[in-house]
């Protein structure tokens, strides 16, 4: 049964909930898209009480996500750009909280370019598989002249612990191919082929994780304890709520 809004599609493949950012655009993280993803994640969470499962986040087209929706942020006059920025940051922070607290294993299928907040979103998953033939991991903020929010900084520090890899990714704005990212321990696997091959690999990995039959709440507890710096930075924003109003 496929459901979802108009920005992402949701389906179940075996035990794996697959959320796909639809369309061939840049999947910019507007509050609307973030809200849809959060709803889909919440649905997966509700469904997980029925037995072990896992989650994959994937995307169609050339981009996984090219970051925050700056065009939306500039649009106005009300709300003002500053408030729009707050809304996007709060929504991303909420999504990261949801993913950290999720009682199922999570895999990001980086099917194309993941930049800025899009790169951070990928790293917020338990595992990352990435398309080998195209797309980069790119923390674009330094080139774009945008300062990095403390929870995003903490996310990168926890998930990219090697000082040199982290410096090159964030302070040098290196555009890393999948092979490069694997070599530096930032992603788990580089997958040959197209979008569908990457998604299939992510689903296979997720299926294997679901097969471990882990107690979900225990998994979530261990995950929060594995990334304590990140958990303490994000969890004061309330985490998963039953209904998120769209902005």
């Amino acid at each position, binding site marked *: 049964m496929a459901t979802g809004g108009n920005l992402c599609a949701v389906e179940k493949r075996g035990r794996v909930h697959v959320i796909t950012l639809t369309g061939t655009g840049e999947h910019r993280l507007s509050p609307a898209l973030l809200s849809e993803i959060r709803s889909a994640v919440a649905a997966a969470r509700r469904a997980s009480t029925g037995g072990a499962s896992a989650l994959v986040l994937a995307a169609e087209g050339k981009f996984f996500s090219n970051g925050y929706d700056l065009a939306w942020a*500039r649009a106005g006059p009300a709300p003002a750009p500053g408030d729009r*920025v707050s809304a996007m940051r709060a929504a991303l922070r909420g999504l990261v909280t949801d993913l950290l607290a999720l009682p199922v294993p999570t895999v990001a299928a980086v099917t194309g370019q993941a930049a800025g907040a899009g790169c951070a979103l990928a790293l917020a998953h338990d595992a990352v598989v990435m398309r080998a033939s195209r797309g980069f991991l790119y923390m674009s903020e330094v080139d774009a002249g945008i*300062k990095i929010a403390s929870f995003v900084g903490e996310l990168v520090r926890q998930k990219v612990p090697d000082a040199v890899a982290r410096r090159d990714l964030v302070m040098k704005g290196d555009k890393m191919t999948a092979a490069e990212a694997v070599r530096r321990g930032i992603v788990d696997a580089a997958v040959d082929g197209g979008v569908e091959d990457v998604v299939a690999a992510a689903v296979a990995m997720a299926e294997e994780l679901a097969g471990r039959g882990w107690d979900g709440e225990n998994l979530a507890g261990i995950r929060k304890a594995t990334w304590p710096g990140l958990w303490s930075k994000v969890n004061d924003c309330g985490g998963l709520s039953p209904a998120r109003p769209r902005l």
Partner: protein
Amino acid sequence: MCTLQQRGSVFVLTLTGDGEHRLGHALISSLRSAVASAAEAAAKAGPGAALVTVGEGRFFSNGLDIGWAGTSRARLSELVAALRPLAADLLALPMPTVAAVTGHASAGGCLLALCHDYRVMRGDRGVLYMSEVDIGLPLPPYFMAVLRAKITAANALRDVALRGKKVRAAEGKEMGIVDAVYPSADETAVEAFKLAEQLAARKWDGGVYASIRMSMYPEACRSVGIVEESDEEKRKHFASKL
């Protein structure tokens, strides 16, 4: 004691003379002035600047001026305290920084090199050496914070801090402490300058670069006394760029 030259978009900070470039009050003070001048000049010139720090002679820096401190614990504490704001200046500097490790960098001198974003080092001689364990001195908290920020492989950190390992450039590269190795001091200086030019050519906004650096090393920054920028300030800056 030190000179600052501007060559295009790169500021070259040189620890002058054939001595050990011991970090006493005078040299620390000169270095702080020079670093501040570079920051000021860069602010006027606009985006795209970088700093290279290089030592003349056999030493990058052999550490704090413990000769001056003698047996006085109070004097040693003074020097430790005096170096801390220089470390802060470098960690907060609104431009990328490269240390050209053209000779030995020990203790406080090693710390100085580690406070830079990148390190290039001569491979033919010279070591990076945290000597404190060997000479029976404690590692001040901010020294440790910088070591932990820059040396993230547990065995490398253990070797440097706890074993007093004398790290040569090639090994430093394997340990993730040194970015590039060159055969001589001269080549090291030349290549460090080229790296600085490449970094400057990225035309990064200095304030943003510094902010991003500080978000990558929050504990080290806190430890040297840098006040953390709030998310609210960052948000306002973001909005102003739209």
